[in-house]
């Protein structure tokens, strides 16, 4: 652990020392801002290069603008594209040409389904995982079924979700829920098992009750790894919600993509893809921020309990 501390110390000091001589006089950024700026610059370069190659292929005539319209084409026609978005969250409603507002509303609905599904899946997963870890009878009763259901792809649950919940938000939320639920249930048990014995000993010596030990020691010890599990399943959740929206909801970004495919609207396809990519990126960023605030004792990207 002390080696760890040494490494962080060096990591912070090195860029400051390396960068100092290059600074123009009178202009200096704190290392944190410099790191952020460099991340941003590389982000722009990376995306720019990707878009540039695409544009180049179009300019050379390799990319058919009807099938693979390059960014400047599908972004230029935003007003035309936006008319396919709808303000209401009604199934099968004809696009009302809602503009930016409609786009934001559609994005918000899809995001809501992901967030609610993830939050429910996480909370229920920890609760069920801890319960079956501690109550032997329930473990014997439920674990075989959970092990059987866990490997089933969430997409395979879609028909079931529609049979049970009908068309609407619930099947989409349910699918996102399934995406994280089993992973969290199984990882909760494993993580509780691997909480260092000394932590438990300390709690017992200090006179903590079982309940206090769980809330004050075990839960904080396992949260970082569980949160990592959640983050790993975030992109799967975005995948699943789009499929659910295509089939089981009839609204949202997934429905737009599906409509764009069936009406052969390549501009709309790529525009929606860009939006979905952006939302996925932002939600991962948001989760990282939550991790930084709430799980401050763990360095970002480091999931294991220590």
């Amino acid at each position, binding site marked *: *652990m*002390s080696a*760890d*501390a040494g490494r962080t110390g060096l990591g912070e000091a090195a860029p400051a020392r390396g960068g100092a001589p290059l600074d123009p006089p009178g202009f200096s950024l704190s290392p944190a801002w410099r790191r952020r700026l460099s991340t941003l610059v590389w982000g722009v370069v990376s995306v720019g290069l990707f878009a540039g190659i695409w544009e180049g292929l179009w300019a050379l005539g390799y990319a058919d603008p009807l099938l693979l319209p390059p960014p400047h084409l599908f972004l230029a026609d935003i007003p035309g594209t936006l008319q396919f978005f709808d303000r209401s969250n009604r199934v099968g409603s004809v696009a009302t040409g809602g503009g930016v507002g409609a786009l934001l509303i559609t994005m918000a609905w899809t995001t809501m389904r992901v967030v609610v599904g993830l939050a429910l899946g996480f909370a229920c997963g920890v609760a069920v995982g801890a319960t079956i870890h501690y109550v032997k009878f329930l473990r014997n009763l439920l674990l075989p079924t959970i092990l059987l259901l866990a490997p089933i792809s969430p997409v395979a649950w879609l028909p079931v979700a529609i049979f049970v919940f009908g068309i609407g938000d619930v099947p989409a939320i349910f699918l996102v829920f399934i995406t994280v639920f089993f992973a969290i249930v199984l990882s909760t048990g494993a993580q509780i098992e691997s909480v*260092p014995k*000394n*932590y438990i*000993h*300390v*709690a*017992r*010596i*200090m*006179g*903590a009750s079982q309940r*206090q030990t769980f809330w*004050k*020691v075990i839960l*904080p*010890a396992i949260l970082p790894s569980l949160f990592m599990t959640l983050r790993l399943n975030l992109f799967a959740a975005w995948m699943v919600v789009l499929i659910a929206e295509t089939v089981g909801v009839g609204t949202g970004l997934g429905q737009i993509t599906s409509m764009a495919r069936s009406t052969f609207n390549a501009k709309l396809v790529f525009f929606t893809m860009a939006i979905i990519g952006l939302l996925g990126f932002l939600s991962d960023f948001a989760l990282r921020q939550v991790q930084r605030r709430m*799980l401050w*004792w*763990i360095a970002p990207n480091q999931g294991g309990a*220590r």
Partner: protein
Amino acid sequence: MTRPAVSIQSVSKRWTPEGRAPVQALSDLTFDVAPGEFIVLLGPSGCGKSTLLYMIAGLEEVSGGRIACDGEPVTEPSAERGLIFQEASLFPWLTIADNVAFGLSVQHVQPVRRREIAVEMLKRVGLGDMLDKKPDELSGGMRQRAACARALAMRPKVLMMDEPFAALDVQTRARMQDFLLQIWRDSGASILLVTHSIDEAISLADRVVVFTARPGRVKTIVPIDLPRPRESRDPRYHAYRDMFAELLADEVDRAFAEQEAV
């Protein structure tokens, strides 16, 4: 005679791990610890020293015999019997001050009072300016001192330490020993400290309990009749060192012979 702080009578411990042969860790162990006494436990690896501390702490049950603290039989853990582990077991999600106050928070002491006690304890162990640091930001020696502060905050009558300085370098270790003697005098607690270092035993102990190889028994109990601070140049110190080296060599030989026989 006053009542012993810890009384260990014919204690034995047999581990019965699932799916493996049972292990007789300790057998027929008897000795007393006087109030305020500094006891060092010395013995070959695997002879059950840690096991004994866990049983005194109430974390493990005895297989036979009786352990009593202040006349009361030990049945469950209690904050009166603090235990400090080889690696500091500070919680990484709490600041140093909150770690020290953990036991108090479990016992529903008011937050303001908690903080006061934590600050006072951390000052006593020389970490007054580390209150709001994370455990990760401290060196190994500092972390062990914080663990001491956490145990002391509960005002224990018995403080047990399982090789607390084994992971530290030689210089830090010497400083920590001085620090420990000071804590011991201030708090008036009895201390039971496990070590593999003969020098550590001679520098610290009132009495050294030497264990036999497994199954651990008391081989002999040696009072250290040297005034503190103890000088390693003192010829009597050398005599103790030779004596312990010989006592331990016998037992280590036996332990190895046994392992080869298996």
